[in-house]
């Protein structure tokens, strides 16, 4: 099937929860909705499910308008952040419940539950009650229940948020395989950029109820069309440097001057924002073209194999990510290096005008 949102808005009171969103999802795809809390992820899912009605725009399934159709009459399944299972039913009965409601025969139920349980590695748990399971297994049960009825649209609202870090990693690893085995449309909401990148698929970045970009996840990551998308999809956060280009110089508030190199000379004189990722700030000069900048260390975080150095440059806070363990004193002055070939440049309307060489190749 194909799900299409055409200029969908939802206004509550005077506030837009969803503002003019158009998206098209096709069967067998994983589509991620990424954005911070209150960006509109849940609101958008409720519209797709038919739990809410858009105040403007229409929703189409295979070209058929389903805007006003009640959720009971759509083929939709939903999984939430909380592990929602029937506490007094066994895992088997939990998974079987949508089939029982649909009035399937005993043999069909046993068959389908068996298949889904195998897919989610729950075969050995079928006789237990949900309370006897770990958080990860409880969420697998909820997921199995969503998959078993063969819904054409499966909505997952931060399904891993309540799980331990390592369990999250494990399920995240398995999800793409589970998704591709079913052929439904999956919509997956998350606040974590790293999770989105690990899952792949397509991504719609959300900001204040608007979709800032929609496309294949890694492509959106390497070529964000605007600054909002770039920032939403960056973890650790993107480093930013607002500059003014005048003749042959780039200045930041008169405090910092950069040579105009790489793709920068082609730009017209105006205000720009330069953005680059933390691992593209260096402690040693990476290339002869690199630009040296004086910085003051605010704090250093060590992860065991890498160091995150938080630094202040001309009143701006940046993060530098580098391999190895580096100890710096608070307020220590150090030299850092920027590589112009890794710069994203956004114009005064926050639209992308320069893409890093490496990203534009890929």
């Amino acid at each position, binding site marked *: 099937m194909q799900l299409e949102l055409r200029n969908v808005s939802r206004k509550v009171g005077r506030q837009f929860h969803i503002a003019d969103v158009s998206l098209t999802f096709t069967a067998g795809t994983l589509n991620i909705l990424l954005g*911070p*809390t209150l960006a509109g992820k849940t609101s958008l899912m409720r519209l797709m499910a038919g739990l809410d009605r858009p105040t403007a725009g229409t929703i189409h399934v295979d070209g058929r308008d389903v805007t006003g159709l009640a959720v009971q009459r759509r083929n939709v399944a939903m999984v939430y952040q909380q592990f929602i299972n029937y506490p007094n039913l066994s895992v088997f009965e939990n998974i079987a419940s949508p089939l029982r409601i649909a009035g399937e025969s005993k043999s069909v139920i046993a068959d389908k539950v068996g298949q889904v349980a195998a897919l989610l590695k729950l075969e050995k748990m079928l006789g237990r009650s949900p309370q006897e399971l*770990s*958080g990860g297994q409880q969420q697998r049960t909820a997921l199995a229940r969503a998959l078993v009825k063969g819904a054409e649209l499966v909505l997952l609202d931060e399904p891993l948020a309540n799980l*331990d*870090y*390592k*369990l999250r*990693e494990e399920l995240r690893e398995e999800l793409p395989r589970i998704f591709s085995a079913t052929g439904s449309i999956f919509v997956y909401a998350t*606040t*974590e*950029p*790293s999770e989105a*990148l*690990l899952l*792949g698929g397509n991504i719609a970045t959300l900001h204040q109820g608007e979709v800032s970009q929609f496309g294949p996840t*890694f492509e959106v*990551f390497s070529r964000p069309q605007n600054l909002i998308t770039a*920032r939403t999809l*960056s*973890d*650790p*956060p993107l480093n930013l440097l607002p500059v003014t280009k005048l003749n042959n110089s780039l200045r930041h508030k008169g405090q910092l001057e950069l040579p105009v190199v790489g793709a920068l000379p082609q730009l017209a004189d105006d205000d720009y924002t330069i953005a680059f*990722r*933390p*691992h593209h700030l260096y402690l040693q000069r990476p290339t002869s073209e690199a630009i040296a900048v004086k910085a003051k260390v*605010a*704090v250093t*975080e*060590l*992860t*065991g*194999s890498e160091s*995150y150095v*938080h630094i202040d440059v001309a009143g701006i806070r940046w*993060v530098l*990510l580098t391999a190895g*363990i580096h100890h710096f004193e*608070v307020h220590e002055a150090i030299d850092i290096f920027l590589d112009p070939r890794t710069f994203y440049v956004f114009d005064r309307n926050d639209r992308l005008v320069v893409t890093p060489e*490496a990203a534009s190749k*890929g």
Partner: protein
Amino acid sequence: MATITLQEIAHSYTGASTNPDDYALKKLNLTWRDGGAYALLGPSGCGKTTLLNIISGLLIPTDGRVLFNDQDITRLPTEQRNIAQIFQFPVIYDTMTVFDNLAFPLKNRGRSRKEIEPRVIALAKMLGLEKDLGTRAQHLTADAKQKISLGRGLIRQSVNAILFDEPLTVIDPQLKWELRSQLKYLHKQFGFTMIYVTHDQTEALTFAEQVIVMYEGEIVQVGTPEELFDRPAHTFVGYFIGSPGMNIIPCLLQGNQAVVDGHRIDLGQHYPDQPASAKTELGVRPEHLRLGPADEGGLPVRVVKVNDIGRHRIVRVALEGRELNVVVPEQSEIGGERAALYFNPDHTNIYLNDHLLTGERQ
């Protein structure tokens, strides 16, 4: 301020018992020096919250003693222990302003307005809350609320320790970075002993000078982030720390070589022979493996999957039937389905029955 000592601490929720399985926390000894930053890291149910509650006074341990400096406080109620705690969900006084929230611990202790005001204002500045001092705390965002909870701990200059119980759970990823570095900065400024409980390895490693890794009620390793990363004392630590975790594969030991499915891997150290019943495994971090073109030495592997996660790529390779993760830099080319795998002898660990085995240098 105080040095915290845990002597022979053990706890069972069902009272003293001869069955070791009844103990949520098995016997442990620990000393935390004054002004240190510590993290308790482990999956849910590992006993880390039990341990935190013993320190805060919510629980009285079944066995053992808790000392602040040399004073036994095992049975002292929470309010007399002079500690502060930040919880998973922000705890604020809804009806008070931000100012009153921060001033509350001082007011309760009968300090004068003249003394309170400058301290609250100075602290609010450090926390970035100075603009919100007059607002009712109820109307703030989750991260600001969590800052207030933290501020109520920091305002008392004499606290023995500040305890954190998964404080970033409800915070969006981008803001996590800000709060984490701020916390680290505040630790350096105030010098309080801080104890941080989490299941998230990144939070634990970046925050703490020393991390206590717990598993099933026991401490499996205490060490600096670097030690935990390079020399995990237990396979669980290897798996739990790092993302993805350590590759652990069964092997046979032959002097200074490990044999995996007939392939020999140099270890740089000599290990004594082990009986056939012993479980010997080889552990190597994905970051310490290297891939090269096939047929030029190294171990022959098949590339199963390449996952682009932004700043690097995770390559899953199969060595005979066993799968390993390899981390390679972004943009590095993976040519074809076959490749050669290289081990670094300095970073290849050997585990005997899950515990790290140290060999002899030659």
